[in-house]
């Protein structure tokens, strides 16, 4: 006895096996990312005022990646449609486009955005020393505006070795723009466009610093969640790309035996891809905009 309904739908359920399978799998994926997003909410609500950073991510790049993913979701549908119309050449084309988008996304994310983060530096100032750095932080102004205080000074760390070497007593930071003119109302809200660090150097004494790190997962719960969720999402993108590549190169055999079967496989992979896309649609606003 062979296993039925691998390609054709079962009359009473109207589904073929793999489709049931992928929907169930996606249900569990929803719960997985649901868990992570609930952690995000938990931690963000717990964060003390000033300890949940804003505007540290590169919004235009993020927007670009969003566009890429949405585009790829379209191309994968087109690839599937092409198969349905039995236009194999065109299927190959769209599939290639999808794979390209996936890889491009990963390159931008892991090759550009992440590195840009972890050579950026931030130093949390001790509550007792906030006064001393008022000229960078501008908390009086923020207080007047009724905005959360600034407790961290960020920028590009000039003396990298200061992080390791205890003999060095202060950090030399090329300030981010905000801290050069903290009272400027234009600086109250995070910027949409990415602004590189200025060349104004501030020296921050280690004894005034609560914690100083590069923008790594250890920096704050914000970056912890950011790297964890985008990392896991990246793995999903990678998985999708691998599957697509397989279908791209080895789909031919299946196609010749039974085109419908390949179409089904592409449909299943596509459903997964849409989900990965959907997750990003949540990630983008949560981390880049809000």
């Amino acid at each position, binding site marked *: 006895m062979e*296993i039925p309904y691998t390609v054709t739908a079962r009359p009473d359920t109207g589904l073929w096996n793999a489709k049931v399978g992928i929907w169930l799998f996606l249900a569990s994926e929803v719960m997985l990312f649901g868990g992570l997003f609930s952690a995000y909410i938990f931690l963000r609500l717990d964060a003390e005022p000033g300890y949940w950073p804003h505007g540290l991510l590169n919004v235009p790049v993020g927007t670009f990646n969003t566009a890429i993913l949405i585009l790829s979701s379209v191309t994968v549908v087109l690839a599937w449609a092409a198969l349905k119309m039995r236009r194999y050449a065109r299927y190959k084309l769209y599939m290639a486009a999808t794979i390209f988008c996936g890889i491009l996304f990963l390159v931008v994310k892991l090759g550009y955005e992440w590195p840009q983060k972890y050579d950026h530096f931030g130093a949390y100032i001790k509550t007792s020393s906030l006064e001393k750095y008022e000229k960078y932080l501008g908390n009086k102004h923020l207080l007047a505006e009724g905005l959360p205080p600034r407790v961290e000074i960020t920028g590009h760390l000039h003396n990298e070795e200061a992080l390791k070497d205890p003999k060095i007593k202060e950090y030399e930071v090329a300030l981010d723009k905000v801290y050069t003119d903290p009272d400027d109302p234009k600086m109250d809200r995070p910027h949409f466009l990415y602004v590189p660090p200025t060349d104004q150097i501030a020296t921050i004494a280690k004894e005034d610093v609560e914690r100083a790190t590069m923008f790594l997962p250890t920096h704050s719960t914000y970056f912890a969640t950011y790297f964890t969720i985008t990392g896991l999402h990246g793995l999903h993108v990678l998985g999708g790309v691998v599957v697509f590549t397989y279908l791209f190169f080895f789909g031919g055999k299946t196609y010749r035996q039974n085109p419908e079967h390949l179409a089904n496989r592409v449909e299943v992979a596509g459903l997964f891809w849409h989900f990965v896309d959907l997750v990003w649609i949540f990630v983008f606003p949560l981390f880049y905009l809000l």
Partner: protein
Amino acid sequence: MDASSSISAHAAHDPHTHADHDHHELGWWRRYIFSTDHKVIGLQYLLTGLCFLFFGFCLMMVMRWQLAFPGKPLPFLGNLIQNVLGPGAMNNGVMTPEFYNSLGAMHGTIMIFLGIVPIAFAAFGNFVVPLQIGAPDMTFPKVNMASYWAFFVGGTIMLVSFFVPGGAAKGGWTSYTPLSDIADKGPTYDIIFNGQTLWLIAFICLITSSLLGAVNFIATIIQLRAKGMTWMRLPFFVWAQFVTAFLLLLAFPPLESAIVMQLMDRIAGTSFFLPSGLVVNGAAVSISGGGSPLLWQHLFWFLGHPEVYVLILPGMGIVAEILANNTRKPLWGYKSLVLAALVLGFLSFIVWAHHMWLTGMGTVVSAFFQTTTMIISIPSVIILSAFFISLWGGSIRFTVPMLFATAFLPMFGIGGLTGIPLAFNSADLYLHDTYYVIAHFHYIVAPGTIFAVFAGIYYWFPKATGRKMNDFWGKVHFWPSLICMNAIFLPMFLQGMLGMHRRWYDGGQGWTLSSEKVWGLSGFHWNTPISIAAWVMGLAQIPFIINFFWSMRYGEKVDDNPWQATTLEWTAPSPPPHGNFLATPVVYRGPYEYSLPGRAKDYTMQIEPVQPNERSMPEPTMSLGH
């Protein structure tokens, strides 16, 4: 021409040549080790699971020595373990607190995730479900194999973690943070090879395994039901597995996310679960802080509670099959049983906080969770009541499977009922974390689920091997086990009421509250009879183990339907060939058509068509496979 006669027609030629010819394509390796056949995978799960179950039990037998005779060197084993695991585990043959905590955590983890779940869900589910719904195999055989091997790897990692410096995880099976976050983080901290990290990694494998399994089960039950096998004709066991699969599918991922976060905390130095201002050993810990210790508990118990129903539902399913078969009458209130199982499944997602009563809950939240916890006890009451009432009017045969199945009922009853005081958070103020809790859930999982598992093994053994397990030794296995189980867990209620707490390395010796007398013994001294009972129970398993392996070769040969049962698996040859059935089965009636009035035999199989004059029916089973 109706199905049954068509089957007898096919049955003409020998199923075994049939089987062989099926197998010739596959080498031994693919047939028994990397097999994609749901029956083989089921048996792989069963054997591996049983070994883990037994191992978990051995850990506990070692712990019980420390609880009964704290500070006394463990005879024989003490030095052996010291030589293998070093003085970190055993100091001059005396168990160290670290090792006690490791044993406790690993006992819990292994029993639940490497013992009961693989056996009750994966093993029986794999072997029985496709047969009972008349399917040739699981929908995704390769995924099925992957599921087993993911489980195997996870289990291996768990075992390996005993041998890394510092020993296996010590944070309890609940791995509460921050304790587990900072565990082992000494100067000699190895980022991967330490108990807690390996525990987390092993879990990722186990979760992957049960996700693959769950997807497969649900898809199989939805897609591969035989012609005529409508939802309301499914045996209750299939329903139980169906709900269980959904619990695993939806409850495990949140834990997986939590595990990823704890891994990040341990490996990448994040602070998901670490609040600001931690002071460990008189020094402030250098972390970003801002994490939330309770977040872990929420994510853990969001799995944790559904998980406990994962432990019991398959057991209920097994018991249901055996009750119907051995009372020779239909299950009472089949529809309400199915409904109750579904409700149980849904509700189990909204009761988790009843494990967190003492974390400082407001009135509204606690009122909500107390109410849901109360409500969820109702479906269980319904299920048990239905089982009890099913006995009424039956003609009860006390076969070995039936003995275990009947014992299950009151044992689960005790365990379940004692959940009720725990469900009131005010009462839990006193009972939380005491041995009362230990007794509560052990009554459900040990004499409950484990007995259901035994019942299932004795019941389906003939289908898997074509031979019966020995009845006499079965009874020799049953009675001592029943007595010991109660001798072990009943006194724990007393210890709990005295205020003795769990996870006490000294068994309560250092506490005046446990020197109070109850029923003639002090709380602490109750440990001795409990431990002795536990060890005797170990002995009581020997007849089973021998019987199990002996019967595979020398057990009494039986026909395809030795219990005169009605469900589909008994229409297939024993053992079923690759592809299971000789002809695609067609289903004509409900699962429990026992003792239909006006029939020659007292059972009517699901494949028997409903005909005007039932008496002239051919006897399909008699000719099956011969």
